[in-house]
């Protein structure tokens, strides 16, 4: 299932930062595949959502990029910048708190 963009929007940057904190450096296609494999194909990260998020994080100075010639083409790798390494901790905490609040709201039982 492709994730609803609206649902993904708020957490996509945190997901990317977290993946890069674990994997050191990744390229665009690899990120989409990693999300797919971790969620066993339940969640699909579309290119239309991934690239704007990657470029925004790079422009904000949270990601750094490097290029390498791989298999006859140039591949762009994304990695966390120093600022990004600091930000990932607070972003994760923020997301976890949001999820626990969301669970509270979604588990509401109708009152009699």
């Amino acid at each position, binding site marked *: 299932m492709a994730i609803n963009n609206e649902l993904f929007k708020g957490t996509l940057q945190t997901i990317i930062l977290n993946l890069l904190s674990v994997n050191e450096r990744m*390229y*665009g*296609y*690899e990120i989409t*595949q990693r999300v797919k494999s971790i969620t066993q194909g339940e969640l699909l990260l*579309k*290119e*239309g959502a991934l*690239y*704007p998020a*990657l*470029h*925004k994080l*790079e*422009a*904000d*100075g949270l990601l750094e990029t490097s*290029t*390498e*010639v*791989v*298999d*006859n*083409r*140039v*591949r*762009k790798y994304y990695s966390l910048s120093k600022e990004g390494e600091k930000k990932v901790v607070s972003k994760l905490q923020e997301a976890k708190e949001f999820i626990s609040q969301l669970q509270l709201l979604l588990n509401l039982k109708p009152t009699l």
Partner: protein
Amino acid sequence: MQLTKQQIEKLRIHLEESGFKYIDVQMEILDHVATAVEERMTENANLTFQDGVNQTQSSFGPKGFRQIEASIIKGISRKYNKLFSNQFIYLLNYKYIALVLFSGFSVYKIQELIGSQDRFLTLAILSYIMFLVASLTSKLKTATYEKYMLYKISESYLGYRDVFVTVIFAYLYGMNASYLFTSVAITLYGLYYISAVSVAKQGILESRQLREKFNLINKNIDKI
């Protein structure tokens, strides 16, 4: 399954013919599409290269690769906007502020020494023409990077400098120009120009790094 050099080149030409003319934009889309095609062809050994490309292209949705291109442009613009404003602010910090004030004061004194507004204007126009010639010469040297979006966006800041010049000249012509205003405007122009050059240099550097890799790939293709 790994795509051959010819298949990669075919894919690149397809992107170019689809309107993705900037090499850096092509490169980012190309790697993503090529990797996706390779995976499809690995999963299904009977799949042809062309079918793999078609399937991958349609998986991008109705906007196709345009969405990636748009985000690349937006990202580069955002990055260079930040670099430009950081550079401009940096020139106003304590390290350079004395030099900036001295430059403004020097322009003020030059006007005072020249004495006549018309003569100062002639000098300003002559200096600007010389400056334009130098800028055009420099632009010719970097024309090779015109095919890179990084260069195009980073270099665009230099185009806006003419707004400063127009304001300065319009003020000198239209009103009784005060020396102070001219000094401030020229000094700000200088700061703007230094910041713009700094951004353009960064764009050239990044474009050059990509060009070296692009040329390396093309050289390998020629050898086949």
